[in-house]
């Protein structure tokens, strides 16, 4: 038993280097600020990225994530702060001398060159590579991205997905220490996006390259990333694994940004080591939490409950259930695999509940519009955020 535990711990340290206090960060952003005139695009961002991980910068438009990426690639100079790659300060190093490659959102394929020439371009800039070597490496990477039959085509003769793979191949063929991806899956349709997400992860594991991905799509971030950095208005709001970000958001913004959430504002009326209670007018009652909050007494807090953690029933769940509220179903959205219910509770607030369609139910068994229902959740489900 102990040996197994120790083995698991060692794997954990290797797979989660950010937990190890002695681990050397591969990339360090230290107090990076970028101003365009008076506008502050990036505000004092500090970040550590470790080797071999897929790090995702997630945020809405204008949050500064692309600017951060471009500063790392060398296309913008930070107004303040330094960037270190593998211990080396990147200040003053132009993009063509950084061991970093970027995959652009628009792919930026050279229209006057074939797929082969596009990919070989980067290798031709390196000194000391013979023609045959370049040809071999190009052929190898074409194999990996499965584009070998399209080698002599020009970009305008390819589909969107194929162009994306050419862009990927072009950036990987130089075997960079880091690959930067700017909204890599934005231009693809849903099915292709899902397939490409897993392909990207496979390629990353195969080649062992560190990825930094910039995206506004949460699904993309949740699928690809080993860690996500959520950005808002030029600042990093929270960094964590997808699970941590989703289940344990630290601020209202993060809770609201990822997935959907029901936010109940209230006063902290009881705060003990193993339980807490929040008096919430929005709920019209008391929210029971099964852990302590360690916040100031009578502080204003928000309880965030995810829609899938609320159960919706036609009858009162029973006396021993702590968190329970009555409401009327206002809207139902049938998504196929699950249904979304918008329930209006007595206080007037609309609560969002999702339920998987696990069984086939007849029309009377299924919950319908304007029905009175009972919503309940476990005391461990809410996350309490204080800002």
């Amino acid at each position, binding site marked *: 038993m102990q040996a197994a535990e120790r083995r698991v711990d060692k794997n954990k340290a290797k797979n989660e280097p950010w937990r190890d206090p002695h681990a050397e960060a591969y990339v360090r952003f230290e107090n990076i600020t970028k101003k365009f005139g008076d506008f502050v695009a990036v505000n004092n961002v500090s970040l550590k990225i470790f080797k071999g991980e897929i790090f995702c910068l997630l945020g809405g438009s204008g949050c500064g994530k692309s600017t951060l990426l471009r500063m790392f*690639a*060398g*296309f913008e100079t930070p107004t303040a702060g330094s960037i270190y790659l593998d211990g080396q300060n990147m200040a003053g190093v*132009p*993009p*063509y*001398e950084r061991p*970093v*490659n*970027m995959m*652009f959102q*628009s792919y*930026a*394929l*050279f*229209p*006057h060159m074939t797929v082969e020439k596009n990919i070989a*371009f*980067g290798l031709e*800039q*390196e000194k000391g590579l013979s023609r045959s070597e370049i040809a071999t490496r190009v052929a190898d990477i074409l194999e990996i991205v499965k584009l070998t039959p399209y080698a002599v085509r020009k970009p*305008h003769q390819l589909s969107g997905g194929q162009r994306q793979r050419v862009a990927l191949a*072009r*950036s990987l063929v*130089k075997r960079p220490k880091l690959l930067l991806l700017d909204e890599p899956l934005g231009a693809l349709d849903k099915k292709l996006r899902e397939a490409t997400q897993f392909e990207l992860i496979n390629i990353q594991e195969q080649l062992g390259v560190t990825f930094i991905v910039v995206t506004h799509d949460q699904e993309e971030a949740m699928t690809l990333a080993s860690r996500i950095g959520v950005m808002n208005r030029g600042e990093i709001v929270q960094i964590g694994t997808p699970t941590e970000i989703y289940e344990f958001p630290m601020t209202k913004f993060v809770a609201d940004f990822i997935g959907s959430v029901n936010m109940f504002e209230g006063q902290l009326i009881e705060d003990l080591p193993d339980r807490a209670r929040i008096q919430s007018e929005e709920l019209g009652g008391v929210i029971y939490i099964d852990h302590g909050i360690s916040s100031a007494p009578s502080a204003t807090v928000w309880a965030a409950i995810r829609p899938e953690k609320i159960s919706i029933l036609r009858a009162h769940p029973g006396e021993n259930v702590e968190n329970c509220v009555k409401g009327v179903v206002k809207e139902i959205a049938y998504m196929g695999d699950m249904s979304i219910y918008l329930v209006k509770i007595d206080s007037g607030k609309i609560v969002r509940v999702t339920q998987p369609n696990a069984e086939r139910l007849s029309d009377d068994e299924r919950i319908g519009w304007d029905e009175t229902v009972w919503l309940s959740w476990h005391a461990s489900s809410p996350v309490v955020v204080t800002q």
Partner: protein
Amino acid sequence: MNTTARLAAPRGTHGRLGPLWTFFFRYGPPRWSRYVVDHWTGQRLVIAVPYLWLGIFFLIPFLIVLTISFAHESPLDRPPYDSPFQWVYLDEGALKQGALQIRLMVHGYVQLITDELYWSSMLFSLQVAAVSTLLCLCLGYPMAYAISRASPTSRNIFLMLVILPFWTSFLLRVYAWIGLLKADGVINNVLLAIGIIDEPITMLKTNFALYVGITYSYLPFMILPLYSNLEKHDNTLLEAASDLGAGPIRAFLRITLPLSMPGILAGSLLVFIPAVGEYVIPELLGRTDQLMIATQLYHEFFNNRGWPNACAVAIAMLLLLVLPIMFFQRVQNRELQAARK
């Protein structure tokens, strides 16, 4: 062929051999009014206007010039040629028969090939045009590049500055160059005053003045197509090149330059084709002992009154330029198709 078969093809389209075939065979005399109704649609009528214009103002004059080039020279007449088409009467006994006699004199064309004067002026024209095109390219490309990189407000100002000279008379601008280049002109006076030279430099009536004049006059024709092409370039391509390890010069040579080729070709042809037939600038600024082909034509036409020879020269000039023009058209078509994709 019965009526139904003849009209079986969809209305408004022509048969394999084109409009004439359609007119005569598919429709035939009884249905010519129907032809007008079917084919002279609004779209086609609009095309008819430029066709008509070109027909009246280019095709017919061209045919006239072609005819005169085959005419017999007679400098003392008015006009100084005998038409190749003459109606003669052949007297055969009691019957007087009229016949159309066509007499094609090839003296003009033969002279073009054999006379060294014409050869040298043709080659000189080509040389001058080529060198001027190269000079315009060397001067115009950096200017077009700089304009395309400037901020939008500055860009508009620069473009206006490029076009501004066209608002003044072309002749006046050439005369201005005379004023600058002549022995007691501005440049010489300034240099003498400063003391760099002791005697005025001969700049006028030299090849140097000719190149300066042509390059100056045709520079906007090089800058504008180049700018139009460079302005459409995608900046992220250069960023991608930089990211892949290409320094600024490499990126320019391998990305910007190849992509600006259509612009270079368009600008070069827009300078080369008119420059070959340039008359005013060589007449005012160029040497008097080595003539370009247009001046040659002028002399032949007005001084020697050799209309057939002059027309032969004109036809030769046209043929000389047909190849570059066809090439230009090919390039334009290719760019249009690429833009459509």
